[in-house]
Each structure stands twice: as C-alpha cells, then as structure tokens.
C-alpha cells in the first residue's frame, strides 16, 4: 500500500486501513474512524514508540525499569482538529502519556511521524514546543514558594514573551482562569483546584495553538475539576485553541468530548464521536429482580444459548443508578443484551422463573462499561485472531506491556483499576 504523505495537514493516512487508527469491528459495525478534516492541527501518522531496556553502560547509572522491549505506541495515527477538544481515554499503560511526551518532544518516536501545524516534532522540537501549552498531571511543576505572578513571569520569560508585554499578558491569563484576586498568593496558599487553574494559565501564557492536558484533574476535587474543564471548554471555544486531553474521569470526558480517542496497550481502538461510540457499542441491559427463586443460576441456564451476558452482582455496586437497592431476600440479575437480542426474547426464555420475577428495569450502560466493552472486545480479538488484525496483531501479542486486558482500569469515579478482571468474573451465557 502506498504510504500517504504526512507533510500535509489533511491526512489521507488516517482513513487508510493500514495504520492503527480505525475502530475494530464493534457489535454490528465496521471500522469507521473519523476522517480528519482539512484543518487538522495535529497529525500523527503510524507513530510507534518502543521503549528498549537501557544498554549495559547505562545501567551503571540507573537501573533499567524494563527487561524487554515495551511497545508503548503501536503505529498510532490520529488527527486533532483545529479548535476542537479531543479526549484521549484509556487504562493505565494505554500509551496516552507516551503520546503526549512524543508530541511535546520529551520522548523521541521509534518510527512514524507527528506533525503539529505541519512541523515535525522529531525534527523541530523547539518550534513545536513554542506552539504547545502543557498542563501536566499534579502540581509539582509549580514553584509553590512563589506567587502566581512570579510563577507565570518565570515561564513567560522562558517562552520569550517581551518584557514590556509580560505583565499585561499575565494579568490577562489570570483573569481568564479566574485567579486575578489570588495573583500575589504563593502556590502553597492555593487550593488544588486553583493550582490546576494556575497551570492552565501558565499553559495559555504563550498563546499556544495546542493545549495538551495530561490528566489535569487527577489531583482535584470534582467541583474544582468541573470548573477547570469548563475553563478549558471556553478557552477552546473562544480562543480557537485545540485541546488534547487525557483523563480517567469518564464523566468529564462525557461532558467535554466531542472527539474521543480510545487507546489500549499502545493502540487506538476507537477514534470518533462519543455518540457514535455509544451507538455502536452500547448494549442495553435488563435488571431483573427475583424473589424466592434462584434467579442467577436459573437465568444462566435458560439464557445459555442467547447472545447475552450475565453481569455479576458486584457490577451493580459501583455502577450508575441501575436499579433500586434490593429488598430483603431479593436477588438482582443484570443481563447485557447482544445486538440481536430483545428484552422480550429474554423474558420469554425466563418464563419458568416468572413467578419469582418481581421487577424488570431497562438501563443504559455507563460510558465506563461502553469503553470497557470496546477494550475487552479488541483484546479478545487480538488474542484470538491474528489474521483479523493483520500485522498489528503480532505486535499486540508480543511482549508489550505487563498487563492483561482484563486488568484494564477505567473508573467513572476517577480511580484507575476499579473495574478489574470483569471478564474473569462475568458469566458468559452465550
């Protein structure tokens, strides 16, 4: 296949099926990545980063963290539209931070290219850094003994903002993030949410074309996080800044994201709109409440040959308001329906249990579960069928990462790892 040009902001590569950009088949869907528009600001093409164990001479300086090569990014291709917000989601180890590190020039790619406004990050990292405002996870990068103004003045000088223009620009960004009243307060006197806003102000200081936010709300309470992300949205909308953001808090992604990139083990498993993701992957659920019968075991037996999945009880504990709390002696059974199965067909199968069925409720899966479905689906395919994925599968299955797909941690409450080994605990009724 002819390799498409990567020097243009319009990216034909993105729609070629060759790279790791497309959505592998979901329930009843064909790969259909969002094609980048002509105004893509960031164009990543076939980007691969393999972390090698450090050479022997280097181990005298610092012990190598890995003993085998780790593919952190596996031929990733994506584009970020100018002026839009792109949310990158994935469990720990998915490659989000490595992608950000490559884009900011902190890590060199093994192969492939990444262009920001047509400038190659590998060849002109300084030029690229001048276009990027970066908000790292946590607040260690602030000088906490210094005031907001001093922090911004320091970085403003590094960014080359002219001396006379700097005070005005600092006042502007502090106003923008709502910290004007705290301008002279030192970092230690700021709340976590205010520090987050100060970091955003620092990122905006040099009028970047692209804001890269690496889990910006990780250390912030939900209210602070909500305010920060509201700011990000308004900045993107009002100043035409493109935003590339990663987060473990899926409710934030849901509120922000018009463009979602889902990554797992260095690969993009979905690239498109949130609504499209739901449309393709969401499987309706039935919450059945039984009294006086062994609902779980009975349902497993009766639905054995239907394309449904019985989810374990524990799924209800951390999941969305699926159903009211069970009453005394009540058993809840959650059935995720396959694309070809209707609620009626499930109830028809459960006829012998109907005398004990005291309640039925249909519920939407949370975004976490939708994403989990995508991740579990793609991991299963990678393991079962190399042919399906072509050359990508061989990379996916060879010594990369130390984590099985079932350990993927995506939580709607912001904690990684809350959903673990669901594959192992769920009962396949298929």
């Amino acid at each position, binding site marked *: 296949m002819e390799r498409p040009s990567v020097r243009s902001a319009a990216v034909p590569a993105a729609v070629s099926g060759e790279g790791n950009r497309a959505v592998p088949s979901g329930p009843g869907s064909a790969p259909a990545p969002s094609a980048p528009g002509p105004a893509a600001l960031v164009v990543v093409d076939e980007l691969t980063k393999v972390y090698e164990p*450090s050479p022997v001479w280097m181990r005298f*300086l*610092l012990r190598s963290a890995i003993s085998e090569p780790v593919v952190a990014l596996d031929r990733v291709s994506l584009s970020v539209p100018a002026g839009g917000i792109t949310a990158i989601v994935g469990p720990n180890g998915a490659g989000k931070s490595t992608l950000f590190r490559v884009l900011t*020039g*902190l890590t*060199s790619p093994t192969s492939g290219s990444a262009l920001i406004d047509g400038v190659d990050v590998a060849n002109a990292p*300084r030029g690229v850094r001048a276009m990027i405002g970066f908000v790292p996870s946590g607040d260690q990068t602030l000088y906490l003994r210094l005031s907001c103004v001093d922090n911004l003045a320091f970085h403003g*000088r590094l960014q080359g903002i002219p001396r006379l223009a700097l005070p005005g620009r600092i006042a502007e960004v502090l106003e923008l993030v709502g910290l004007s009243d705290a301008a002279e307060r030192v970092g230690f006197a700021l709340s976590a949410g205010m520090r987050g806003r100060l970091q955003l102000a620092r990122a905006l200081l*040099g009028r970047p074309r692209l804001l890269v936010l690496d889990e910006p709300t990780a250390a912030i309470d939900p209210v602070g996080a909500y305010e920060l992300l509201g700011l990000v949205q308004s900045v993107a909308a009002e100043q035409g800044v493109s935003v590339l953001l990663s987060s473990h808090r899926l409710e934030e992604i849901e509120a922000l994201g018009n463009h979602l990139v889902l990554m797992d083990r260095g690969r993009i498993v979905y690239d498109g709109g949130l609504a499209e993701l739901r449309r393709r992957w969401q499987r309706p659920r039935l919450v059945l409440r039984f009294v006086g019968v062994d609902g779980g075991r009975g349902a497993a037996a009766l639905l054995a040959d239907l394309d449904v999945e019985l989810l374990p009880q524990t799924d209800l504990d951390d999941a969305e308001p699926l159903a009211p709390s069970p009453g005394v002696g009540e058993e809840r059974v959650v059935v995720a329906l396959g694309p070809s199965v209707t609620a009626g067909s499930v109830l028809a199968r459960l006829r012998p249990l109907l005398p004990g069925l005291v309640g039925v409720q249909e519920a939407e899966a949370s975004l976490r579960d939708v994403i989990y479905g995508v991740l579990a689906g793609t991991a299963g395919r990678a393991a079962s069928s190399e042919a399906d994925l072509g050359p990508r599968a061989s990379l996916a299955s060879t010594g990369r990462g130390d984590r099985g797909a079932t350990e993927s941690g995506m939580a709607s409450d912001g904690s990684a790892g809350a959903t673990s080994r669901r594959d192992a605990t769920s009962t396949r009724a298929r």
Partner: protein
Amino acid sequence: MRSRVRRLLQFTGAFVRMGVRATFSYPLGFALFLATQVLSVVSFVFLAHYLRPSPAIGPSYLSFAAVGVVGNQVLLAGISGLSAELSSAIEQGRMEMLLIEPVSWRLLPVALAVWQILYRVGAALIVLLCAWALGVRFVVEGFPVVVALVAAGSAAGVAVGVLAGSVRVLAKRADPVATVYTLAASLLAGTFVPLNDFPEPLRVLAWFLPTTYLNAGLRKAMLPGSAGIYGPGAGFALLLLALFVALGLPLAVWVFGKSLDVGRRYGVLAGY
C-alpha cells in the same frame, strides 16, 4: 543576532530572578550560608598562628587559604551549584516543565548555573572582606586580572558542571563527575595545602584541574610576595582557563545534548 542575544539574556535572567526569589524565601538558610563563609575564614586565623610565612604559601597562611576558599567557591558555583539546581529540578518534578518550554536544551544548564555563580561570587567577596578585616592585604593593581580570572574560572566550573549534569540527567541521583572532581580538587588543587612539596606525579595530575591554575593565578594576582607559590602566573593561568573553557564548554554542552537525546530515546528524561 541581537534578538538571539536578547533572548538569551531574557532566558538567563528568568533563572536568575527565580534563584533570587528562591534564595531569599529561606532567610535562615541564607543567613547560615553567610555565617559559614565568615567562619571558614576565621578558622584559618588560628591555624595561621602555627604556620610561618614561606615562599610556598606567600605572606601568610590566612591569605593563602582565604584566596583558596575564593577559588574553590568560584569553581564550585558551576559544579556543585548546577548539580544542586538540576537535582532539585529532577527530584521535584520541574525538569519536565523546563524541557517543554521553547528554550534551547543545551543552554538550559548554563542558564541554571548563572544564579549559583553570582551567589557564590558574592560569597567569595564576603570571604575576601573578612580576610581583609583580619589583616590580609591585597594587591589592588591586580584587580582587573582577578575579575577576568573569576569570570574564566566560573565558566570553567560551568563546563565541568554541564559535563556532570549530562551524567546527572541519566543517573538521576548519582553525580559521579562532580563528586570525583570535588574530591580531586580538594586534594590536588592546592586550595588549602601548597603543592610545592607534593610528589611530581600528583603535581602533574593537579594540572588537569582548572581549580589548580585558578587558585595559583588568583594568589599571584592578589597577594604580595606570592611568586614562590606553585603554579602558573596570573596571565598564564588566565590563558589556561580560557583554553579550558574554549574546549571544555562546547564539548560539555554537546555531551549534555547527547545525554538528553539518550534520555528521550529511553524515556528517562523527566523521571527520577
């Protein structure tokens, strides 16, 4: 060219201002540092009672040691000072943010060192003032050469410091270059002990250390009756330091760049 210089000054100025703010944020730490400088001279007053003036130490041991302390301060500004700055940037997690700014990575350690140089040169002045108050007399005519020697010595220290920094960014906590240099200089550079009676092989080794010719040059420029002190004269010392800087600084900056490239490749650049 002018805009590049302006940019460089702005970039360096940012670190200097940051250094000033950081230093004076801890007033007790600053006061104790000053006290240490004063005490370092005072302690030599008593030692000087037991050491008679000789050609090897010049007019007095106090003057010999005081100028040695000054030479040491100037060189260590670039070496230990830069090492401390890099260390705190790496361990406090700020290194990543510095590297993301649109600045030259190769010049980053040089800019980081500037405040430390100014700070330690200030400390060296305090040492000289104390020595003067305690009776040491200096040759005022040698002042311009002393300034040039201090400038060249600081730059030489930066060269060694950047080389040390290039190991530091990969080794994170260990600083073998600075450690080895400081140990070697404390023994061989004639800071507190005249090199006149050292065995020849050690004296040869001493010539590999810029501290040796900085100390010798400063003593011969500043102290009357210092011709018998081992080492080059002020002019020759200045030439040697300039040569060291001309060769060493670009090499160190190049090695630092290579070190960052290795860090980028193995993904260890901003970790700790």
